């Protein structure tokens, strides 16, 4: 299992969560499952990072949260992307693209 370095995850975790929520409202546990599944088990989000990140994003107004019932009737807190969150997602996707392109250039140059 790849365990990315702290600072790498710091930037990318927000992007991953925003992207995940872009598909629809989801609770925290659901987010971890989704990322794990979509990345084909390559990325595993640590709970210890996820919840602080979610709360920060809520403070920043990127996501809003409300209580609801999960698929199997458990009370869970559902996070939903706000308009500000959508803009942030677009921004972060662009940044990520630039970063990966730049890294790719460097790799192919050598």
């Amino acid at each position: 299992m790849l365990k990315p370095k702290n600072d790498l995850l710091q930037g990318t975790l927000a992007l991953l969560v925003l992207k995940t929520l872009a598909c629809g409202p989801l609770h925290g546990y659901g987010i971890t499952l989704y990322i794990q599944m979509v990345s084909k088990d390559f990325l595993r989000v640590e709970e210890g990072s996820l919840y602080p990140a979610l709360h920060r994003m809520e403070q920043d107004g990127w996501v809003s949260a409300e209580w609801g019932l999960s698929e199997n009737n458990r009370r869970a807190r559902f996070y939903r992307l706000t308009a500000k969150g959508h803009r942030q997602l677009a921004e972060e996707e662009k940044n990520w693209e630039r970063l990966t392109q730049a890294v790719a250039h460097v790799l192919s140059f050598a």
Partner: protein
Amino acid sequence: MSLLARLRSMLRRNRLDQDLDEELRSHLEMRAADNLAAGMPPEQARYEAQKRFGNTTLLKQDAREVDIVRWLDEAARDFRHALRMLQRSPGFTTVAVLTLALGIGANTAIFSVIDAVLLRPLPYHEPDQLVMVWENNSQHPNPHNTVSPPNFLDWQNRNTVFSSMAYMFDGRDNLTGNGDPQEVVVQDVSANFFSLLGVSLLLGPGFTPENGQAGHDNVVILGYGIWKERFAGDPAIVGKSIVLNGHPQTVVGVAPQNFQWFIKDGSLTSAKPQMWSPFVFPQSWSNHNDMGRFITVVARLKPGANRSQAQTQMTAIASQLEHEYPDADGHWGVNVVSLRDQISGELRPALLVLFGAVAFVLLIACANVSSLLLARAASREREMAIRTAIGASRWRIARQLLMESLLLALIGGGIGVALAVWGTNALLAASPRNLLDMHSVSMDLPVLSFALAATLLAGLLFGFLPSYISAHSRISETLKEGGRGTSSANRRAFARNAFVVAQLGLALVLLTGSGLLIRSFVRLIGVDPGFDTGHLLTFKVSLPRAKYGKDPLCLAFFQQLLARLSVVPGVRSATMESFPPLAGLGAATAVHLLGQPSLALSDLPVTNVQVVGSNYFNTMNIPLRAGRLFNAQELAQERHVTIINQAFADKYLHGLNPLGQKAAIYMKSLSENELQPSEIIGVVGDVHQLGLDTTPEPTVYWPHPELVMSGMTILVRTANDPLSIASAARTALQQLDPELPLAGVATMDQLLADSLSRSRFTMLLLGIFSAVALVLAAVGIYGLIAYSVTQRTQELGIRIALGAQRRDVLRLVLAQGARLTLLGVAIGVFAALVLSRLLATLLFNVSATDPLTFAGVAALLAVVALLACFIPARRATRVDPIVALRYE
């Protein structure tokens, strides 16, 4: 994050907490359910879910990053952590805490005195509206000259700025009945005196306006002290009668304990009044040309009026009076002084200098502790780096270090306040009785607030730089380099050097200040008072006018007293004079030398007048410079002769032979035809009448018959300890009149010491503070060099292994100290040149930039600093190369 959001999140804290708890619980349950579904046994399914989460409490705290309560939680955690860190290094903690306690304690002690003397409101009604009104002669400047009664009456009638004015003058009266006769200082005042000040009496109704009319003034208000001592605090004293100078007076009140009214400048007795009695001006006192200046005036400004308006108007009134009465009021102006300035004026410069000095001591202490923290921070760099690596923010690290500093400061401050309580009381106990009119200083709210503010400020001051540097160190560098040679290590080294230089500079400023005061004091005690102060007993005898109203009675009494005293065993000779030397007292008047052109009275030269008894000059050992002394006839009868001092001859006779000259001395009466000029028969050496720091003024001496005075200071030259004959002197006095008290018994050496007390006290305190500063600065540079020797052990080992001699190593290490010392001394000399000017008013015969003092203290500081460097430098020469190289 805005304050509003922070507040809101604080209010929502409980809700947030519950939400978070529930959210995390639901997450755990979902995970556990899935694990179960994947086939794990239930126990393991739950454990696995928990494990992935780690510590849920911690997580919750991280998620609430924004919460102010969390901030406080963390502060508390930092606090506990700081406490543990300090406990772990008791040596460091002790040194730092003691250093700070010293600094904060000294500041608090001096501030408590400043608060009491300069800041606390005076115990009167609207004290800011109270002013003293003095006269002030442009020819003979004395800003606080007492006032003539007719001028007072005119001021009172003409001014529009004062709501009321009161006058006072003090004298010594004999209090008789119930117990030994006792001399008391009684202040005669206008009947409105207490109501003007707005003092509410402890007991009794006080003076009524009726007491201000002739015939109704036989009442008295007792001071708290005399009420307690003489009348045993009798609660029923009001209405009772006491006997003053043989006259019964009815007690109408007792002043409260905090009523410590004493205006030294106007005092005729130089002593604090013990009771007050109304005094009504006789009709004749409104005659301008027949009255001297001897009353002290206090006035209350009308609401809305201020001191400078009063000054303007009173100056205008004074110039009217100057025109109307040129003889009496020529050259006389008015000086309006706020009561606060009047009372604290002479202490203010010394107190402010001392306050500056303790502030410097605190700064030096802060620099020391800061330097210690920097040294510690270097060794803790790895700890910090690891904390940063595992996610602590810079702010978090800085905060933790600041918390340690604040904790140090608080402990230091607490001990400091305890030190201050003890120190202030020691200070007051050691302070001369005529300097600070206080017995204890209370640690009240303003003083404690000051101590707290000083503590927090100190904590931030010495904690800021070390935590800033630690918080901004680069982790990767630190972990790689093992804490040496990193940029933060360089910054620390620079900061510690800067601190040492600053400390040395500050210490030099303080040392210069105390050096100047010491030199000034040495000059002062080197002044020849003009007479022999050793083995000389002094006391005062005042004859009540009721009994000794006629001059011959008075004259005969004192002659008999001196005759009796001179045969007491152990007495060499006895004499008397009207005003004792060194006490700041004297009488002065105009003098006209008959050989010189006649001038208006107010333009005539001024001379002090001293009335003396037989054997005066011999007893005092005042040398005769020319002519002869008074003979027996002149001492028994009025023969119109006088002896002048050298200053009189130099200033007014300009080389003429003084002997045989005639001088009209305007002391007895102003009417020309009654004035019999005195012939100058001798010239004697100068005496420092007003104090060692004042140049002797022209003085004429009259034998007692020329001007019979009823109150005299007796001077007895003894073979042995002067105080041992005090009781024999009392017996001699009371054999003549059992109702007379022996007052103000002191030796002349005591009076001399009292006259020097303020200079000595200021010098002593500043000396103590600068010694502390010197020690702290020495410890500072010692610590730095010792640390740097430890850091350079390896380098020094290599040097020694390569053949460096002890001498070379010594020079290497000392050179580092010498550079810092030189820089510190240079900066200090420059700062001292600027700051020592503030001392000017406290210096006597020494320039504030006295080169000898500057050179001396610079040398002293340099030697002490280099000695402090020498200890670690010697250690450096003993470095064993083998051990040093194995160090890593």
